C-alpha cells in the first residue's frame, strides 16, 4: 500500500465502505434472526412448515408473541413447545416475534 498514491487509497476506502454495506441482508445479522433460526428447524425456513408441525409464516408478531408466552406459562398445552419456551426470556420472545412476524 505504501507505493499507492493517496487519491487511489481514498477511492479504495469509499469502495470498501460501499462493499461493506452491500452484501448483507438487512436484519439477517441480528439477535432476532439468530434466535429465530432455532425455530426454523422445526417450523421450516421463514416459518413455512411442509408437514404436521404448524407453520408460523403469515402470523403477525403479536400472535406469535402471545403463543410463545402461553406455551411458556403452560396456559397453552403442548407436547414440546413448553419445554422449548422455558429457554427464552421475555426480551428474546419479543425479538423472535418481531423477526418471524415480518418474514414472508
Amino acid at each position: 500500500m505504501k507505493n499507492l498514491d493517496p487519491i487511489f487509497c481514498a477511492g479504495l476506502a469509499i469502495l470498501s465502505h460501499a462493499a461493506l454495506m452491500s452484501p448483507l441482508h438487512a436484519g439477517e445479522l441480528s439477535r432476532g434472526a439468530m434466535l429465530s433460526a432455532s425455530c426454523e428447524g422445526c417450523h421450516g425456513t421463514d416459518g413455512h412448515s411442509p408437514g404436521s408441525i404448524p407453520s408460523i409464516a403469515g402470523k403477525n408478531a403479536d400472535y406469535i408473541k402471545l403463543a410463545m408466552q402461553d406455551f411458556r406459562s403452560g396456559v397453552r398445552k403442548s407436547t414440546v413447545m413448553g419445554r422449548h419456551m422455558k429457554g427464552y426470556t421475555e426480551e428474546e420472545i419479543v425479538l423472535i416475534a418481531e423477526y418471524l412476524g415480518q418474514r414472508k
Partner: protein
Amino acid sequence: MNHLSRRKFVGMASAAGAASSVLGWPVLAQAGKTSGRVVIIGGGFGGASCAKYLSRIAPGIDVTLVERDSKFITCPFSNAVLGGLYDMDFITHGYDALQNKHGVTVVHDSATDVDAGAKKIKLAGGGELVYDRLVVSPGIDFKWGSVAGYDEAASEMMPHAWKAGSQTTILRRQLEQMPDGGVVIIAAPKNPFRCPPGPYERASLIAHYLQQAKPKSKILIYDAKNKFSKQPLFEQGWAALYPGMIEWIKESDGGAIEAVDAKAMTVHPTFDDPQKGDVINFIPPQKAGNIAEVAGLTNADGWCTVDQRTFESRVHSDIHVIGDAAVATPMPKSGFAASSQGKVCATAIAASLSGQEMPEPSYVNTCYSLVGPAYGISIAAVYRMQKEGIAGVKGAGGVSPKDESEAFRQDEARYTVGWYKSITSDIWS
C-alpha cells in the same frame, strides 16, 4: 462439475494471479473484509445448513459446498426404513435447491487435504479451492479394528448402518431374510457417538417389523454403557408395545463387546461365551470424519476442539468445525444439533467477514424417536454460550413426560414425521 462451478473454480485457482493484474480488489477484500470465499466440506446437516444460511445472511459471500455424493441420505429416519415404514427415497435429498435457489456452488468431489497456511484445500479430482474461511463438517468415521475383528470388510456381514445408504439396505435385507425365531443383536458403543437415542430407536422399529413378520424373534442389545438417552421412555414403550421381545444388556452385566467374528456371526461379550446372531448390527466406536484428522484438527480422542461461540478450530484459525466432528458438549451429536451449529457458524462467519459484531449465539436441539409408528418421544434443549462454553438453559428442555396418554404419544409420533420434513426442507430445499 457444471458450467457455473467450473467458472468459479478457475476464478479461485487464479486468485493469486488476479492480485497483480487487478490491483486493488484483493487488497480491498483483505482490508475491508467485505466479501469472502467460504468453502464448506461436507453437505450433511451441518454443512448444508451452514451453506444455505450463509447465502441467506450474506448473499455477497461466495459459498462453495464440497460434497462427495450427488444425493445425501439421512441417518434420521433410516431406522424407520429398517422397520419397513418408509423407503430409501424418503430419506434421500439432493443439492439442486442449494445450487439453483440459494446460489451455493456445489462441487461433487472429496477433499483430500487442507493447507491451513496457504488457505486452500485439495480435491480428489485434482483441483484446489482457495478460501478465506473453511468450514469442516465431515460427520463421523469409524475406529476400525478398535474392537477386534470389526473392520470395513466385517461391516459387509455385520452392518453398522450408522452412515445411511448401502449399509441401511444391507441391514434391511438381512432382516427380511432372517427366519422367524431368529436373534437380532445390536451392539451399542460408549459415549460419545452419533445420535445417542439411535440404537434404541432402531431396536424399537426393528421390533415393530419383527412383531408383524417374525413374531417369535428376539432382539438383544449389547451395550458398552450403563444408561442411555431417553431410557425410561424407551423401556416404558418397549413394555407396552413389544413385551419380552427386546433385552438390554448393560456394560456392568457384560454388555461391552470385546471382539467379533464376522464369519461365525458371533460377538464376544465381556463375561460370556461368544453369542451368535442371525443378524448383527454392530455400531463401532467413532471419531471425527477423516478429513478433520488429515487437516490436523482432531484431539487425542479423535474429535475437534473449537471455540464454541464461532466453531472456529482451536488448532487452525479461519477453519471452523461443526456437527458430529466437533466437541460441542452438552449438545449431542445429532443432525438437528449439527444444523443449529451450522447456522451459528454461518452467523459468526458473516459477522467476521463484514466486520460486524456477532449477535449472541443461540443453539437448539430437538430429537424425536419413534418407539412405534404411533408412539413418539422427544428430547429438547436450548443452549447459550456461557463463560465455560455451551450450556443448556436451566429449567428448559428435557424429555417427554413419562406416563403420558396414548394420545400424547400419537401426537409426538405425528410430530416426529413433521419434524423430519421440516428440518430436511430447512436444509435441502
